[in-house]
């Protein structure tokens, strides 16, 4: 469609919100984006968008956006660090002053306390190039692997399990292949709200292609409306449910013997460990009717093409790794890998969480999942970055949650945050705040002064996706181009430029023999450097992805990319079955705290809210709501829009109730986007022992009706009719 506004133009880029990676056409007049559409020829989203991509990019122009570097007026001391949301508490400074200040303080702490005192949170919203550079800065200049990003809080459980069982952690198949599936399982994913465009394809698969869905989820999420079976499990009982299905499949001889013989190992041990998961036992621990488990097992095992889609309901658990193993076991058992329309498909949350992981913003691995404690790998990166032999740190670094809990004298002293908001996304926020206050130095690089940036000594204003060039890698491994569409607002700068400038100033102070190279002219040079170090990105070049992105692995300049993985083999040769045991959640309900709190997202908001709470979309969903089942609401006479106090052992929040059967009896649900009623004040910081992911999805709480006066913000209740 032609635009009728004079002087308007269209810029094509990639959506900055979720992992689907929709292609956007930004309609612009005088550097103002007034409309967003999508090309109908788009291979990812076929012209469809969700509310966030369509209307949610206006945070770019929000008045509260910071567009000039800032330094705190009152110097902050460890233990007495405070939050400063008010601009009066900051002094606008030049980039020179801000970066000199940052470099001075960073080098001072590094030279006094060594690399262990340094840490960084990288950013799954930023580009591959930004992430590659920040991990390069931390590793090559400060000689530490203390860099992580929010993948630790998202899919760490899935990643660890997939790496162990198969050798690669990405989605095995392309999302749009769902129309080729006969049966697919959706578990721990509210797909219609968190990956709306994939949900559209799933609905289409059911309505137009005859596919059948099995939803396993404690919430009656929208996709249940399209499902053949819904298994309403108790939070945290995933291992039991999926192992129960495996038990039935083994007992009824429905498994794929040929696939198991040729491509897997440890089947006998696995078979033994599944013996105990009888439908009766599974019903007793999960609350799912035994017949539903048998039906689901038969439906999935008899499918010619069966796929499994999951999100954080599986991984955000103290046994998140086991949960993911139970899904992998199921796929291996039924031979549903390596073919079109099958696969193990962890739906990644952030637009570039796949890419940030690929780019090495992780404490245990260099770019391309190359282990930091592998001598050969370390030597390879020392050569690439001009570092003396033995210079890079061979010790695994601290993970996201560990970085904060290690903030104390002798531990982490300086933290660099690029675009993350741990003061919303960490579990047990009251404790997280205490850790944050102990920092000696905090540098924040972001768009807004959010709950985390407000603690900073120096604030570096970065640009949005629309003001810089780069690449994002979406959930199905497609590397897509991000184009600068408008001029940076005010005095803000692209992340990659900020990092390069800062790195050069740090090098000036540290005086290494050779520079690690920071004088890039364009992000394409950064991606090329990464491609030389990461085999799966070797063939990804800017000139090849101008129109359509390439799906990694792309092994050379002529390689066409890889729509689905494991056609002939697994990265570790034979895939491994893992025997499993069922363990309950870390904090089961009791008499004092009788309900389980589940947390997650809503369609209209994005994670910590830094972007969407600064968008007009906030009008559609302006306040936090706690979902309560009518059975639980009944005995306290709670009605929709009443004010409710929700209390856990770690904190309390007050917010409005919405009484709905979307959540099952015994479980309440709160989205975690809202700072004024932050769900993570309540959540449990117990970790999965292997993946170090916290149990966001289940903790014990109690609810109590309070006066509307107690609500943190008294806006009119926004009536909505959507599911």
């Amino acid at each position, binding site marked *: *469609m*032609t635009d*009728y*506004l004079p002087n308007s133009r269209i810029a094509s880029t990639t959506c900055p919100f979720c992992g689907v990676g929709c292609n956007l056409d930004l*309609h612009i*007049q*005088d550097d*103002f984006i*007034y*409309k*967003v*559409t*999508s090309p*109908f020829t788009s291979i990812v989203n*076929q*012209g*469809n*968008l*969700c*509310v966030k991509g*369509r*209307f949610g990019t*206006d945070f770019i*122009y*929000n*008045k509260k956006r910071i567009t000039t570097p800032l330094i705190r007026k009152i110097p902050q001391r460890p233990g007495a660090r405070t939050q400063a949301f008010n601009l009066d508490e900051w002094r606008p400074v030049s980039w020179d002053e801000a970066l000199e200040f940052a470099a001075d303080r960073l080098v001072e702490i590094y030279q006094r306390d060594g690399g262990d005192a340094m840490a960084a949170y990288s950013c799954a919203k930023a580009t591959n190039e930004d992430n590659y550079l920040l991990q390069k800065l931390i590793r090559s200049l400060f000689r530490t692997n203390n860099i992580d990003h929010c993948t630790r809080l998202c899919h760490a459980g899935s990643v660890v399990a997939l790496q162990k069982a198969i050798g690669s952690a990405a989605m095995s198949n392309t999302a749009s292949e769902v129309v080729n599936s006969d049966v697919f399982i959706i578990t721990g994913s509210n797909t219609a709200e968190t990956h*709306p465009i994939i949900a*559209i394809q799933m*609905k289409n698969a059911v*309505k*137009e292609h005859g596919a059948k869905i099995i939803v396993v989820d404690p919430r009656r999420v929208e996709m249940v409306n399209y499902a053949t079976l819904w298994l309403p499990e108790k939070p945290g009982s995933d291992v039991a449910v999926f192992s129960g299905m495996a038990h039935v499949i083994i007992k009824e001889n429905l498994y794929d013997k040929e696939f198991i013989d040729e491509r897997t190992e440890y089947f006998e041990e696995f078979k033994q460990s599944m013996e105990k998961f009888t439908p009766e036992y599974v019903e007793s621990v999960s609350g799912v009717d035994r017949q539903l488990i048998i039906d689901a097992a038969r439906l999935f095992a008899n499918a010619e093409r069966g796929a499994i889609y999951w999100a954080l309901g599986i991984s955000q658990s103290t046994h998140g790794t086991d949960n993911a193993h139970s899904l992998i076991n199921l796929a291996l058992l039924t031979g549903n890998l390596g073919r079109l329309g099958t696969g193990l498909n962890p739906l990644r949350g952030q637009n570039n969480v796949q890419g940030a992981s690929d780019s090495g913003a992780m404490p245990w691995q260099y770019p391309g999942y190359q282990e930091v404690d592998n001598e050969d790998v370390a030597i390879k990166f020392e050569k690439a970055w001009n570092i003396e032999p033995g210079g890079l740190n061979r010790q695994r670094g601290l993970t996201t949650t560990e970085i904060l809990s290690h903030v104390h004298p002798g531990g982490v002293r300086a933290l660099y945050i690029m675009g993350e908001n741990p003061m919303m996304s960490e579990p047990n926020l009251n404790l997280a705040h205490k850790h944050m206050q102990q920092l000696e130095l905090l540098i924040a690089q972001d768009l807004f002064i959010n709950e985390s940036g407000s603690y900073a000594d120096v604030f570096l204003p970065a640009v949005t996706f629309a003001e810089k060039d780069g690449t994002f890698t979406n959930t199905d491994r497609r590397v897509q181009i991000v184009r600068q569409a408008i001029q940076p607002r005010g005095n803000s700068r692209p992340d990659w430029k900020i990092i390069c400038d800062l790195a050069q100033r740090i090098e000036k102070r540290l005086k290494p023999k050779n520079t690690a190279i920071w004088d890039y002219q364009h992000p394409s040079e950064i991606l090329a450097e990464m491609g030389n170090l990461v085999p799966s990105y070797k063939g990804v070049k800017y000139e090849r992805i101008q129109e359509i992105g390439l799906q990694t692995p792309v092994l050379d300049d002529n390689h066409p990319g890889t729509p689905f993985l494991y056609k002939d083999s697994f990265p570790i040769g034979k895939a491994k079955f893992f025997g499993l045991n069922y363990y309950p959640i870390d904090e089961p309900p009791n008499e004092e705290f009788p309900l389980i709190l589940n947390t997650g997202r809503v*369609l*209209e908001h994005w994670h910590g809210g830094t972007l969407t709470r600064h968008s*007009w*979309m*906030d*009008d*559609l969903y*302006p306040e936090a709501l706690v979902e309560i089942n009518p059975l639980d609401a009944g005995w306290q006479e709670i009605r929709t829009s009443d004010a409710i106090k929700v209390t856990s052992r770690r904190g309390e929040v007050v917010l409005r109730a919405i009484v709905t059967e979307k959540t099952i009896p015994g479980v309440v649900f709160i989205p975690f986007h809202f700072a004024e009623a932050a769900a993570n004040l309540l959540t449990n910081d117990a970790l999965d022992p292997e993946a170090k992911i916290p149990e966001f999805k289940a903790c014990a709480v109690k609810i109590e009706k309070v006066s509307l006066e107690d609500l943190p913000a008294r*806006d009119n209740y*926004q*009536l*909505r*009719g*959507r*599911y």
Partner: protein
Amino acid sequence: MTEQIHLTIDQQPVTTGAGTTILKAAQENGIEIPTICFHDSCTANALCRICVVEVTGARTLIPSCVAKVSEGMVVETQSERVRLSRKTILEMMASTTDLSQSPEIIAMFAEYDVEEDRFPDATPRHPEIIDDNSMFIRDYAKCILCWRCVQVCATDAQYAFAINFKERGYNTQISTFFEIPLPETTCVFCGQCIGVCPTNALKPKKEWLLEQGMEPETIMSLTRQERRKRGR
């Protein structure tokens, strides 16, 4: 391998697969047939009839967006009868609808010698702009009832089923059920409807405010109450 069908379009012999529409068969051979309500991503419904063609032996003109090819078919896409029909359709649209923001349709006026005031007694539709949320406005004075928005809201994309036709005949209009404000419907504000609207009857609120002469600065300074204003 699908069965091959042989036909003639504008004296040109054409071969295509069985089940292809006349419109697609023509496009494959570089013959342009104008369309308005047709969209590649939507189910075709032959509502606007601008794509009609003359098929030898057929009593009426045939909408090429839905009619399938058949063996030996002889199709004329620019016969006098076809051109008169298209001219009349455009003139009737122009007499009732505000096409000022539909450059593609206006571009057809010259091609078909359209007299915009051919029906001076026709009553243009003037429903008020519906401004009931912060995301987008609905200006049905510009609506030609192509039905694309209803379809993408339903089974062509979103499965939200928030909008449909109300009333009949001349009074037909796209509406929410019982005309309730959009936020109270099943609408998820995906805006697929905006993406397929051919006449800019549906547009983001920011675009509409720009059009009213408001500066981006002022637009972004609006308070939540000002943005949400319900002017039904």
